[in-house]
């Protein structure tokens, strides 16, 4: 069932329809929240807060774009609020620092670590768009709408991010056929 159909049902007071939306976007939100907060417990809190926020929109919720476009700014805002409240990371560089550290098993995955290090050299707005496109699987239009940014700006930031990674010795292999 499409998101819009589920939303329509939830607007009529069907909790199962909302539950279906929860299970559809739960992991996406959780992953995104973890990226923003760098902390599993905070990410779980963001997940719950985001669904409480979404729940408050029912009945009467109208989806004008895709769900990810609607949810992305909400998750980002809630994550920032929770992070500020708890005095944790001031930027998502913290997540990348954590990723570049050795894994729990005491081994460092070289590729993983180098990719994470390469990402830290990207300006925040370029990295954000790169991750939205490649990790969150959002289209350029969805990214532009979620960030309230012109699509031309989104394209140019993505282009610059890829350009930087292409000429970085740690990531240039990704761009060779």
């Amino acid at each position, binding site marked *: 069932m499409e998101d819009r159909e589920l939303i329509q049902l939830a607007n009529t007071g069907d909790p199962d329809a909302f539950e279906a939306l929860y299970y559809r976007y739960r992991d996406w939100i*959780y992953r995104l929240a973890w990226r923003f907060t760098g902390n599993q417990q905070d990410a*779980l809190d963001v997940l*719950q807060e985001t669904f409480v926020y979404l729940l408050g929109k029912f009945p009467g919720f109208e989806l004008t774009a895709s769900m990810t476009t609607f949810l992305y700014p909400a998750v980002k805002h809630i994550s920032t609020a929770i992070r500020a409240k708890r005095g944790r990371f001031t930027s998502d560089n913290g997540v990348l620092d954590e990723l570049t550290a050795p894994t729990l098993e005491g081994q460092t995955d070289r590729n993983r670590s180098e990719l994470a290090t390469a990402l830290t050299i990207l300006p925040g707005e370029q990295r954000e768009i790169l*991750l939205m496109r*490649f*990790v969150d699987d959002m289209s*350029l239009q969805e990214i532009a709408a979620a960030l309230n940014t012109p699509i031309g700006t989104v394209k140019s930031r993505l282009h610059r991010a890829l350009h930087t990674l292409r000429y970085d010795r740690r990531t240039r292999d*990704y*761009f060779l*056929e």
Partner: protein
Amino acid sequence: MTERMEQFDEDLDPGEYSKLSADLRALFKTLRSVPPEVDRAVYDRIHRHFAGVKSSQGKYRRFRWAALWKVAAAAAVVIFAFSLDLTKRSERVTQRPALAEIQAADIDLNGRVDILDAFTLARQIEKTGHVESRWDMNGDGLVDRRDVDTVALAAVRLDKGVL
């Protein structure tokens, strides 16, 4: 080996960068899944919310019906009162002096009934306190302010020109 070039006029397909895309996804993959307690907490919250919505919708429906009944009753009262008022108005219209009756209202005998006749009659009543009984326009046996009103009413009638 050749370098891959991006084409930014159209949306970029992450599939073309499958290795980069896969590694980025792996990099940001959460280590643990969402614990069942969180699912249960959200589940409870969802059901509480929708139960509340249904309850408030029921209250709203009951309130709406009560409000509708009140509005309907008020409308009925207003319509009834309005119809009574209309009846009174139509009575008042019929009480207005007929043309034949007010021909005598030409007090100054200039051939037409106008506001000056009302002024003349009023002045006459005020000055002497006694005027001819033929100026008893409303036929109540007295020549007073009410007769002045009758003359004034005749003067401002739209069809006064026929006099």
